[in-house]
């Protein structure tokens, strides 16, 4: 199989383009299904998201809202101080989950309009505020950088 220099290069470039095309295809296909948007309770209500649509809900855990249900079920309210939304979560909360602190949860609304979270994002540092939550609170004029330290 004697290929000329040009043909050899063609094979190389061709295989490169082919792999890249497959990758682009995979990315476009995957992105439609897996991209998850972040909303605050106000935005979520404004968008009138239907049940079953997956998104991230972020804000502050409302003071006094955390209550335990049957078994591992936990209910709490996420607020951006303008609007709030009830969340249920079955599982173990991260260590740094506290009332009055920022939280990001991922899941979907059920038929009653309650957010069923399957993930509550943990953080490593008690001073860390998820950026989305910080921005959302800044819009409400409630939080400045460094303002959430104990």
């Amino acid at each position, binding site marked *: *199989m004697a*290929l000329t*220099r040009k043909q*050899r290069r063609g*094979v*190389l470039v061709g*295989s*490169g383009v082919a*792999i*890249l095309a*497959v*990758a682009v295809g*995979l*990315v476009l*296909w*995957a*992105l439609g*299904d*897996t*991209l*998850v*948007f*972040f*909303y605050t309770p106000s935005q979520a209500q404004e968008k009138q998201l239907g049940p079953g649509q997956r998104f*991230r809900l972020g804000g502050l855990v409302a003071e006094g809202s955390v209550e*335990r249900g*049957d*078994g*591992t079920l936990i209910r709490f309210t996420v607020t951006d101080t303008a609007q709030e939304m009830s969340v249920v979560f*079955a*599982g*173990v*909360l991260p*260590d*740094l989950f506290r009332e009055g602190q920022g939280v*990001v949860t*991922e899941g979907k609304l059920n038929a009653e309009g309650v957010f069923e979270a399957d993930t509550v*994002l*943990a*953080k*490593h*540092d*008690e*001073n*860390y*505020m*998820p*950026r*989305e939550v910080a*921005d959302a609170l800044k819009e409400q004029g409630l939080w400045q*950088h460094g303002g959430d330290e104990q």
Partner: protein
Amino acid sequence: MVAEVGHYALVLALAIAIAQSLVPLFGAHRGDGQLMRVGDTAALVQFALVLLAFFALMHAFVTSDFSVSNVWENSHSAKPMLYKVTGVWGNHEGSMVLWVLILAFFGACVSMFGGNLPDTLRARVLSMQGLISVAFLLFIIVTSNPFVRLDPAPVDGRGLNPILQDPALAFHPPFLYAGYVGFSMAFSFALAALIEGRVDAAWARWVRPWTLVAWMCLTLGIAMGSWWAYYELGWGGWWFWDPVENASFMPWLAGTALLHSAIVVEKREALKVWTILLAILTFSLSLIGTFLVRSGVLTSVHAFAVDPERGVFILVIMCLFIGGAFTLFAWRAPSLRSGGLFAPISREGGLILNNLFLTVGCATVLFGTLYPLVLEAVAGTKSSVGPPFFNLTFVPLMIPLLALVPLGPFLAWKRADLGAALQRLWVAAAISLGVAAIAGYAKFGGPVLAPFGIALGVWLIAGAFSDIAFRSKFGRETLGVAARRAFGLPRSAWGMAIAHAGLGVAIIGIVAVSAWRVEKIAVIKPGETMEVAGFELQFEGVVPRQGPNYNDEVGIFTARRDGNAFARLESAKRIYAVRQMPTTEAAIYTFWTGDLYVVIGDGSEQGRTVRAYYNPFAPFIWIGAVIMFLGGAVSLTDRRYRIGAPKRARHAAATGGA
């Protein structure tokens, strides 16, 4: 006093680095040996100064000098000594000093061991290293000075973030940084080669060991980080496709590609331009990684509180270096002459395929990591890209690559016979298919693709052994002769086989945990039992216990299989006295075939929430990474790196030094 010495040393190091970046470059341009040698001295002095600054900071931590703001914020007198020492890099400022220390160390190595490099190349490499030092020293001095004093000095510190008080995480940053920064060597060599206008086999032979060292460190650093996340965070997971994790994974992918393409330059003098590009890309990804982690622009589960101004500074550094390097590349690369013709089916062709898959895979990771950022800038909507995206894009791209790995070493350079190569691998193929059948039978009804994933791992291991067996003529010579031949094989051949086998081991662990993990959450009272994957866990109760700087609430479990108690597991809720921050300590019992992983949660009237996992073959993931590291180490001891100075090709004998 010591802190001031440290601060002064940093400023002096900056001055030296400026000299190091300019003088040798000018000297090389003019062909002035004396000016070029300034680089050697400057690199050593710079390293000594940064080391002094580093020890000054360590002194402040070890002696708990709380008049230094950084120590006050991140240390406490009651902390164990190990964490006082590692606390030096357990914070932003200190970790940047470590970054520059490692950078200066690599520069000093060029100066000390680079005697066989041509003078002009060494001068230019040192100059580029100096330039990177200048940028990061400036960054430390301007935005992140670790030696800022507090007056009056507080009585005690605020303590290190408890989650960082852990042996694996204590040594995770040094290895990770050694990897990140180690790729700066390939970067500097690439820029120096572009300025010189030539790349040859000798150049590749100098670059490869540095890249290999960086790659080894990064492999171990990533593995440590993921191991830590596995047992410390208590979620039972080991990789979350989190932006901070991706930040370290992308340079690893590009670095792995570079490691392979440099072989082609070394052996065949082909792929020169591509290798240079890859060297630039790899370090660029290290810079992007540093930026993503240090600026906090992306929401990460591993994020720490950050200062946005620093992000801007690193962004500027990043743009200058990446932009400058690519400009130089665009300008000079066309003048590099390429040699070494080869057919598509050949060792070269195989390595190109490896590079294509790795770089395209790396590009998908980069895309997934940055997409939310771009979308927010363009559309203003906040979003996140999680594991499902990467599982659908990156993973399918890696499967053909992994399937082709064992084939590569059987292909001859220039032109290879695919049929013959496949024939030599039939034993390996048979073993893998056999294992797939056994796995499919044992886990019947589980994920359909999982047995094939396991087979892929076995294929890599068996393929690596086949390569060694074939080269030493096992089965064709007497056993004694073959064994002698096996011992006589170049270390690089062994290193490659070991590293590929290690990858196989890791793949088995990854596939098994992803496909067959069992998770149970239950609320149980003392005396009650829960069942997970055939194990019975009896909850004995909770007892308090005091540690050096924390208080534990220890949940005690007895683990039984078929009624026989075989282990007592202790998982704790830990409260650190200083920060009053709770953490969870998972209890892990490791078998050969997997981990029993138990985490105690909060209590209520109904009992304690307990999470239990069975993670089949989980330890294989990290054992595999360690084997890959060892493979790299074996390859590093190869004869060709130890014996004799690599000589440049004949037509350049006039400029080449010995």
